[in-house]
């Protein structure tokens, strides 16, 4: 039997103008597990993360984090809940007028009473975990895409959060850098044992890291299954997705050889 989920979306609906993006999304995220939300572009995958973070309010439905509805609690409580979160944004969302060191140090400086010496130790430790030693004084514009993402992850992990959200962690990276990003993810999760929510369309590679895989299709989560069950699911939408993303490139098996 599964333990109590730390995050639960219950029948979440969201409309932007005439576009009905989320048509009743229900999803549970379990502690210490890695849940991957997959789906084609424009299906509202990132919107799910924004709902959990309380950045977007649903038109209807509930978003429960540690049993509290993030849309019905006071700002102070929301702040407390968010203090358990770390987020790696799609474009890393680094503060472009700050150096790498200052970006990673920001949560420590603003949210803790740590002294500058302690901050330096923690930041350097996180940067070395990301293999970013020697980049302390660089600005985000001077970094490659992969390095920016790793700085974003270092910043997300600097306060040792319980839940970390990854919004398209490998978008815009080449194969080698994507693999490096996954290795960094695996290394940090093993070390810090956080709950991970990953939004990605990097199938099948992402399935290797997942404990659960959920498919967003037609504005709803079709199902949330283990990677093995996901690949053999009878759900037509999942089957179609698996075939499209993991099937043969050529039209017949024979041609593929």
């Amino acid at each position, binding site marked *: 039997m599964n333990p109590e989920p730390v995050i639960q979306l219950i029948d979440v609906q969201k409309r932007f103008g005439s576009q009905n993006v989320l048509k009743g999304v229900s999803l549970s995220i379990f502690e210490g597990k890695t849940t991957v939300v997959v789906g084609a572009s424009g299906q509202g995958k990132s919107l799910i993360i924004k709902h959990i973070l309380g*950045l977007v309010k649903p038109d209807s439905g509930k978003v429960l984090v540690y049993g509290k509805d993030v849309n019905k609690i006071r700002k102070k409580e929301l702040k407390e809940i*968010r203090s358990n979160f770390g987020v790696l944004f799609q474009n890393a969302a680094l503060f472009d007028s700050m150096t790498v060191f200052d970006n990673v140090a920001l949560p420590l400086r603003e*949210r803790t009473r740590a002294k500058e010496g302690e901050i330096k130790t923690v930041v350097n430790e996180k940067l070395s975990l990301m293999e970013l030693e020697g980049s302390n004084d660089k600005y985000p514009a001077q970094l490659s895409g992969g390095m920016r993402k790793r700085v974003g992850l270092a910043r997300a992990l600097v306060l040792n959060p319980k839940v970390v959200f990854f919004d398209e962690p490998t978008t815009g990276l080449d194969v080698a850098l994507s693999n490096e990003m996954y290795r960094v993810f695996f290394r940090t999760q093993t070390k810090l044992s956080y709950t991970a929510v990953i939004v990605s369309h990097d199938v099948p590679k992402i399935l290797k890291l997942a404990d659960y895989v959920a498919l967003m299709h037609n504005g709803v989560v079709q199902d949330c299954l283990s990677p093995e069950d996901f690949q053999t699911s009878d759900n037509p939408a999942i089957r179609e997705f698996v075939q499209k993303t993991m099937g043969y490139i050529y039209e017949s098996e024979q041609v593929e050889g």
Partner: protein
Amino acid sequence: MPILRFFEKFGDISLYYVNQAGRMGIFLFVVIVNIIKFPYYKISHITKQIYIIGALSIFVIIFTGAFTGMVISLQGYNTLRKFSSEGLLGSAVALSLIRELGPVLTALMVTGRAGSAICAEIGIMRNSEQIDALECMAIDPHKYILAPKFIASVVSMPLLTAIFDVVGIFSGYMIGVGLLGANEGSFFSSMYKDVEFSDIYMGFVKSVCFGILVVWICSAKGYYVHMERRGGFGAEGVSRVTTSAVVLSSVLILVSDYFITSLLL
């Protein structure tokens, strides 16, 4: 039907502007609450903003103040001479600068120099998800980004206005007395006799109000760039919203100037 479409469009636009006004009002309230509320911000955040908004504006304020004082003196001397009242040149220059031109022109210059920069900076932060990132780190952007800018603007504006007034009066003296030959004694005695504390007070109140107005409009416009009616996305969205922030601030400075004057006179 075209008439119905017209009313639909009209209603849509009206609702948008009512919404925007409400949003900006709430924004101002939230920032003021965050300024007062514990925990307080680091002094380094405020000094950095005073440097950006205030110190970096000093040169342009001295320059505009000097030429404003010079032209008032030139115009004033030639007008007063028609009535043989050149002796009043000092009070004319000082009063027009202290009560009106000092606060208004300083505010307009700060809008152009620092207000536009504030709007663009916050707009870019919004569009590149930096503000979302702050919220996700449980750091309140109202406290971290906006409160120091508000405090810096309210502190800087009266000081810049004072510099503008002093430079303007001095350059008016140089032109009136040094170049046009007005009597030096009458220049200072008329100024000493006619400028009262209420004039200084009016200039001070105006500069504080303009300080709040500039930083409020410019930061709110940048903060809500994603809610702009014509789309606030990308570089074009930020440039559009910066232009509209500068125009709106400038217009509101002139409008509020009239109302503050009528209240304090």
